[in-house]
């Protein structure tokens, strides 16, 4: 009885601070499977728990490869979020909040963690590393653009949204590879 009460209390506490594990898992699966359609109602949430965990994981995997880049990750993330927020508000009829942009961009950083994990095992400055980096950049930008167009109803402009996302994730890839 006491254990079930404890779990119920913990679930209530988690809900009160705005963490929805089901939505976090749905977003993570949407990123990992680029062919999975994105649910616009879930993607429009301002959830920064997952993105913060992913950013820390990205920094940690870079640390394992001998690179202390937490400051660069923070700076590039902030500037990238602001730039994408401005661009999407200019391109879309319905606006988007900065938190939503940060949430989507943070979730789509997950494949970059896989790339930085590979950098721990072997050097990416070679025949295998560059194509792998390009694939991961495409994966991240495809997932991010899919989420953005589902939220902003911008069908037909996915390429226009994907390209600036690709440039942003390309900067992260440069951090990882070099």
């Amino acid at each position, binding site marked *: 009885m006491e254990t079930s009460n404890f779990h119920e209390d913990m679930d209530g506490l988690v809900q009160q601070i705005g963490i929805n594990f089901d939505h976090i898992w749905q977003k993570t699966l949407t990123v990992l499977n680029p062919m999975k359609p994105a649910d616009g109602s879930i993607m429009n949430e301002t959830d920064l728990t997952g993105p913060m965990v992913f950013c820390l994981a990205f920094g940690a995997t870079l640390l394992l490869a001998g690179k202390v880049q937490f400051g660069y990750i923070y700076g590039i993330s902030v500037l990238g979020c602001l730039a994408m927020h*401005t*661009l999407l*508000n*200019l*391109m879309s009829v319905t606006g988007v909040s900065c938190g939503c942009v940060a949430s989507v961009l943070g979730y789509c950083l997950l494949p970059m963690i896989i790339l930085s994990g590979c950098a721990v095992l072997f050097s990416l400055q070679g025949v295998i590393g560059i194509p792998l980096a390009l694939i991961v950049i495409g994966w991240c930008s495809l997932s991010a653009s899919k989420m953005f167009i589902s939220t902003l109803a911008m069908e*037909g*402009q996915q*390429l*226009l949204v994907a*390209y*600036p996302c690709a*440039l942003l994730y*390309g*900067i992260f890839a*440069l951090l990882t*590879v*070099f």
Partner: protein
Amino acid sequence: ASSSAVIDMENMDDTSGSSFEDMGEMHQQLKEEDDVGEEPVPTEEDDGAFLGVKGLKGQLGRDVADQVWQAGKRQASKAFNLYGNIDILRPYFDVEPIQVRNRLMESLIPVQMINFPQKVAGELYGPLMLVFTLVAILLHGMKTSGTVIREGTLMGTAIGTCFGYWLGVSSFVYFLGYLCNAQITMLQMLSLLGYGLFGPCIVLLVTYNVHLHSLFYLLWFIIGGLSTLRMVAVMLSRTIGQTQRLAICGVLAALHMVFLLYLHFAYHRIVEGILDTLEGPNAGPVRFPRDIAELSITLLNSTVKSIGASLQMR
């Protein structure tokens, strides 16, 4: 004489009503109409003690400071609403992917008809993305060549160079066009020069990965030349007078071609092959942009000696 009721808008002079200032003024007028009844009414407080013992620190000082603050705040909000409202830029980002693709292709095709003004796309998405692409290519080139920036960061240098060129040269050529009475707006100049960066992006993307100077010169001449010719042809079609045309097009062509040369030689390795063999204490000088280190005979000799020593060890 016959007159037609149909107006050909294809090559209509589109220099009016599309500038940032026009859009900003329109928004400002709409804003002022809404704010007519919202002027703050100055309230009269008890002035009995305003010339009190404390002087400026008393009520008079507080009133003056408050009025100065309110006046400054009103001026700042007016300026922000006029120039900082991003809604004035919204029409310039309303594009389709197929339009961007066509404009990218057209940026390498010089127009032949210069007798009437050629249409310039009033759009900022493509040029902005091309500038960011050039930043990314520069960063990639600097990382692969081990370039070290003494004062600043790689990102800051790349962004400053690319945006500085785009905004600075656009402003300068627009100013020249204003002096020479060219029919082009600032937005069109930004768009024209932005799309003109497509050629340099291709050249640098290839030559930062394939290290051949002859290939660079060939691509610089062909692809850089085509994008320059495109911009020059558009400016020729929008300028009247031989001297004016020569001035604007000469400056634009020179700046565009020299910029590509600068990007290649300032942000990438200039010595291929030799640096690859240097390791450890025999490593050559670190590559600094705009600080070209001259290779000396002693460096070459030490390189040859180190290669010979490594071969003997095997």
